[in-house]
Every structure is written in C-alpha cells, then in structure tokens.
C-alpha cells in the first residue's frame, strides 16, 4: 500500500533526474566538440573593461569577480531605492484613491490606470530618451538649490567630504538603538499608566541631537565639494568635483518607481477597503481624528492584507531592474551577463551565476517580508 503511494513520486523523480542528466550530457558533448571548457577560473582573470558607474572601487585592472560585484551592487542599489520610493508613492496614491476629494481621487486613479497599462520597457525608454533629451546641456543648466546641476549628462550635486565619518556613523547607530528602547518604554508606560509621552519629539531630538554633538566635541567635520563647470572643447562641457548621479540611474529608478507604485497603490486601496466599515465608524465614535483612525485602527489591520501582494511587487521591481541593459545602466545583467559573458564566452557559467544571484535576492526579499508579515499577523491567544 505504502509502496503504491510512493511509486508515482519515485517515477516522477527518476524522470526529472533523467531529463536533467540528458541535458547536461548533451551540453557537455556539444561543448567538447567545440572545444569549450567549463569552469569558473575566469572569475579571477583581469576584466579589462571599465564600468561607467560603480559603488566600489573598480577599473578594468580588477577581476571579473569584482566586475560581478559592481553589477550586483548596482542592481541592489536601484532595487533598494525603487522599493522605498514605490512604497511611499504607492501608499500615498492608494490612500488618495479613497479620498473624499473628487480631484485627488480622480488624479490618483488616472495615474494608476495610465502607468500600470504601458509596458515597462517603453516607460524606461520614454524617461531615458524623451525626458532626458529635454534636459539642458551642462553649459545651459540652471543652478538648483544653489548647489546642483541637472543636465543631460546626469545630476551633479555637492559631494560630502567627511572627517572622522566613523565616529559620526557609530553615534547614529547608538541614537537609533536609544530610540528603539525609548519607544518600547513609552509604549509600556502608556499601557500601564495610560500616559502618552511625546515619542516623536523626543525621538527626533535624539536622532538629530546626538550626531550633531559629535561635530562639536567628537572632531567630526563635514564640508562639501561643489561641482564646477569646465570646458572640454568648443561645444562640450563637464563638471569637476561634486557627486554625479548618471541619467541612466535616474531614468531607471523613475520608471521602476512610477510603474511599481501603481500596483502597490492598488494593494493599499484593497487593504483599506478590506477592513469593515464598522471599524472606522467605531473608531470615529470614540473620538479619534480621521488620521488617527487611519494610523491606529485601519492601517494595522490593512497591512495584513497589503503585505503579501506587495512582496510580489518588490520581487517584480527587483527582477524588472534587469531591463537596465537597454539604457546602459551597468546592472548585473549588463555588466556580467553582458560584457563579461561576451569577453569570456562562458555563457553557461555566467548565466548560471546570474540566475542564482537573482534567485538569492528574491528569496531574501521574500524571507524578510514573510518575517514582517508574521510579526504583524493577528496573534491568536
């Protein structure tokens, strides 16, 4: 009886193993006849190509492994910024869709319907070619906020120059730990004594005040290097100094954010609407203000509905960031599965590594979000 149950599963397993075995053998044989060798030794070789934008120190004399890291960090950067911005925008638009104000409501739904229904690649091209083409050349760029320039070659902003940055950074972390314990204490106090402490005020005082102190007594100092225009030829200019954000990153972030935020907004709307009307009315009847109703009653419950589908959107955004290759943003796909694959010819190895990397990133996001989802779930007592 037990054997009968297991047999189909065993056969399926055997079938899958055989198929994989066949493909592996086939690939092996084909590679042998063409004299291609399988191996990861190339990762240590000198990459000998440069990358436009890197978060770590890199030039062509570094290894392919380092180039991989550059691409990976660039992917993570755009995914990180994209997820944060899309969440903020999505939450605002989602709430706006339920606003009693006709204009706000209609604007929000128009935005959602518009951006949700245009293919992402097209939007990326639009922001890169159409919108960026409208930006001025460096020599015509107006001064923004008395310090920055937005040009077709990118955003040039003042670059911070730190002395004793590590002291500042450690103090920042200490401040955050203090705030964490303080808010726990405040919550307990409220539960026991019913007294509300001005949590926000005290927290922000700690957060700003403590690091500021290091400037006065810790030897920390901050100055800025401002971008200065320089002529390269009769018609072309560039900026020296300062901090440069390439237009490719801006366009990609913009496109990913605007696209993904529409889906998150719909999740937020669905989450809020999923909470019974009675909850809102009951909360209002005990004298809570509309924003308190949203913050204290609706949102904590709505989050349980919002989080799981939003996790999907975070994963989508991360995977969609691989469209970066179309507009020259040096992400993992462009740098590693693009240039590095071409220069080494190690297609199977590199595609394998790239797939494993995206899988790892996606699983990590999933785990994190599942953990968060469990935390806010109703604790059955």
């Amino acid at each position: 009886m037990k054997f009968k149950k297991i047999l189909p599963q065993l056969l399926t397993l055997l079938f899958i193993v055989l198929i994989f075995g066949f493909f592996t053998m086939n690939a092996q044989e084909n590679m042998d006849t063409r004299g291609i060798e399988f191996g990861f030794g190339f990762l240590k070789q000198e990459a000998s190509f440069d990358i436009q934008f890197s978060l770590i120190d890199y030039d062509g004399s570094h290894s392919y492994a380092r180039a991989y890291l550059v691409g990976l960090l660039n992917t993570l950067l755009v995914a990180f910024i994209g997820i944060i911005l899309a969440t903020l925008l999505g939450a605002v638009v989602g709430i706006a869709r339920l606003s009693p104000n006709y204009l706000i409501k209609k604007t929000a739904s128009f935005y959602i319907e518009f951006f949700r229904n245009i293919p992402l690649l097209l939007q990326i091209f639009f922001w890169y070619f159409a919108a960026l083409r409208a930006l001025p050349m460096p020599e015509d760029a107006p001064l923004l906020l008395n310090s920055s320039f937005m040009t077709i070659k990118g955003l040039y902003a003042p670059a911070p120059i730190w002395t004793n940055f590590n002291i500042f950074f450690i103090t920042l972390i200490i401040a955050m730990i203090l705030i964490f314990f303080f808010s726990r204490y405040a919550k307990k106090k409220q539960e026991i004594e019913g007294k509300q402490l001005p949590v926000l005020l005290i927290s922000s005082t700690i957060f700003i005040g403590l690091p500021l102190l290091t400037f006065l007594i810790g030897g920390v100092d901050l100055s800025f290097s401002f971008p200065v225009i320089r002529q390269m030829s009769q018609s072309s200019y560039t900026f020296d100094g300062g901090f440069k954000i390439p237009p490719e990153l801006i366009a990609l972030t913009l496109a990913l954010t605007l696209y993904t935020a529409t889906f998150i907004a719909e999740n937020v709307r669905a989450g809020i609407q999923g909470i019974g009307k009675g909850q809102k009315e009951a909360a209002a009847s005990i004298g809570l203000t509309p924003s308190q109703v949203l913050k204290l009653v609706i949102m904590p419950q709505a989050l349980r509905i919002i989080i799981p589908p939003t996790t999907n959107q975070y994963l989508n955004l991360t995977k969609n960031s691989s469209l970066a290759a179309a507009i020259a943003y040096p992400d993992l796909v462009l740098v590693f599965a693009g240039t590095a694959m071409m220069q080494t010819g190690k297609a199977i190895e590199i595609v394998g590594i790239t797939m494993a990397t995206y899988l790892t990133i996606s699983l990590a996001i999933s785990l994190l979000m599942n953990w968060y989802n469990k935390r806010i779930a109703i604790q059955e007592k």
Partner: protein
Amino acid sequence: MFKYLKQLTSLVAMVAVLFAFTTETMAAKKSKTLKNTQKKGFVRCGVSQGLPGFSNADAAGNWTGVDVDVCRAVAAAVLGDANKVKFTPLSAKERFTALTSGEIDILSRNTTWTLSRDADIGLTFVGVNFYDGQGFMVRKDSGITSTSQFKNGISACTNIGTTTELNMRDFFNSKGISYEPVAFEKADEVVAAYDSGRCDTYTTDKSGLAAQRTKMTNPNDHIVLPETISKEPLGPVVRQGDAVWEDIVRWSLNVMIEAEEYGINSTNADSMKTSDNPQIKRLVGSEGELGAAFGLDNDWSLRIIKQVGNYGESYKRNIADTGILPDRGPNQIWTKGGLLYVPPAR
C-alpha cells in the same frame, strides 16, 4: 524472362540509389552542417540588427550588405540559389551564443577576429572580408579634429560585448585621460544617446561610424576623427568542429576576392569559361574538380560569381555607392595596393 527483367531493374535501381547516396553524401556525411543545410534548403546566417553597408534590411525585408553577401555566396555554392538564406538579426551580445548553440550556421556580422574568440569560445574565423579599425566620432561644432584634443571627463558611447570596450580602455589609459564609458546593448540606442548629447564621442569600428552617421538627425554635424586606435579584421565565423563546412565558407569568400583579382565579374563569368588562363578557368569551373573536395558540383564557384558577384562588385554595391566609404582603403586587392590577399583556389 519478364520476371528476370523486373528483378534486374530493381537491382539496378537499388545500386543507383546506393551509388547516388554514397556520392552525394561523402562530404555531407563528414559535415553535419552541410547535410542539414541541404535538407532544410536554406543557409542559416546571423547578421547585425542593421548596419548599413554590412547587413541591413530594407522596408520589404530584403537584406543587403557585404556581410550578407558572404552568406549569399555560401547559399549559391551549396544550394544553387543566393536567395536561399534565412537571416537572423543578432545583437553583439547574442551572436556567439547563437552560433555555438546551433541557431545559426554562419555568423557574418562585422565580427573582429581575435585570438581569444578564435581559440577559447568554440568558434573558428574563416577569413577577413573587411579590414577595419576603431575610431571616434564627434560633433563638428566641438572643434575637435584629433583624438589628441580629448580632455579628462569625456563621455564615450559604445556597444557592450565588443572589442571596442576593451580598446577604448587601452586607448584612454595610455593617454592618461579619464573617461566615462556609456555602453548600450543595441546600436540604435547608442546612436540615439550620442545624437541627443548624452555623450561627447561615439566610438566603434570606423566602418560602423561611417554607416551609423547616416542615421543621425543631421549627419553633416558629425565627423569621424582620422586616428585609428586598433586593428579590427572583420570576418565570417563558423562553429568549431565541422571542418568541411568551415572550408566551404572560407572558400566561398576567397572565390569572391580571387574573382576580382582575375577580373571575373557577374556579367563576364560565363564567357571566362573559355579563357586562356587556367586559374580563371578553375575559378569558373571549366577546369579541375575543385568543388568535389567539399562535396559540391563543379559550378559552385561560377554560381557565386554570377549570382553574388566578385568582392569589388559587392563593395561597390553596398559600401561605395551608398556613400558610406567610397574609398576602399585597405579593402583593395593586394595587386592594387590593398590588403586583400587570399590563397589561390586550385
């Protein structure tokens, strides 16, 4: 009696079939690619996604260019019809994988012959159909007339997955100039980005620059700088491991070049059959048995010359007459001071 006759005819038929089978597939047996090509009835050729003069499709989907003509020559030799080619447009990144995975059988896509590509990734270069070198394009109003006027911070647009990316680094490093590489996956995006002002210079093979210049909003606003920073011998590529197919592609190209050397072209090829020069007679198939070596008939080379033309005709039709590079430069027959020198077809 009648019974015997029937048996005899079937025996003869069997022998004939067997014989036909053996003669026709001697070379085909050795070459899987040739056999498959003859079975399918078309040559599978990988080309660029649109590079005027080399491989470019018109509105009706007809491909033209010197790279395209190499594949057409192979089709004329192997299948008897230069039009029996299926073209697959490939990006620089996809091209080698498409070839090694067997999606295409010839890669004729302005591809630079280098040691690592030839030896390392399962490919074999069969010859050179265009001698090129990497150059730079800049806007005319920049006043730049030489790469020596390049300054620190210059941004350079190019394609990924090419030797260009490597040469560019070597060049700027040796000059000690800091630069910003902006590398796109597709050539059209490179052109669009450079044209919009994102980059100060556009760098790729000079032939490519000349061809892409025609796609700019105002072609006359741009100039190609005189310096050549690298050697870029471009040529057709085949998969490693099929020596007969490799020979067919190599000699299809060589025939086109040698035909020009001996003054044979698409219009006079038939009349050359009675030439006094034995080398000319070999090229048009009226002497020797050159085709047999790769399992082809003796008119294979005549068909190439008649249907596709010699190298000079192909160059004139695709590159000179279209105004891309009217001057043949190094891509001239060696007897006229160029670099085109191929082993004799004999």
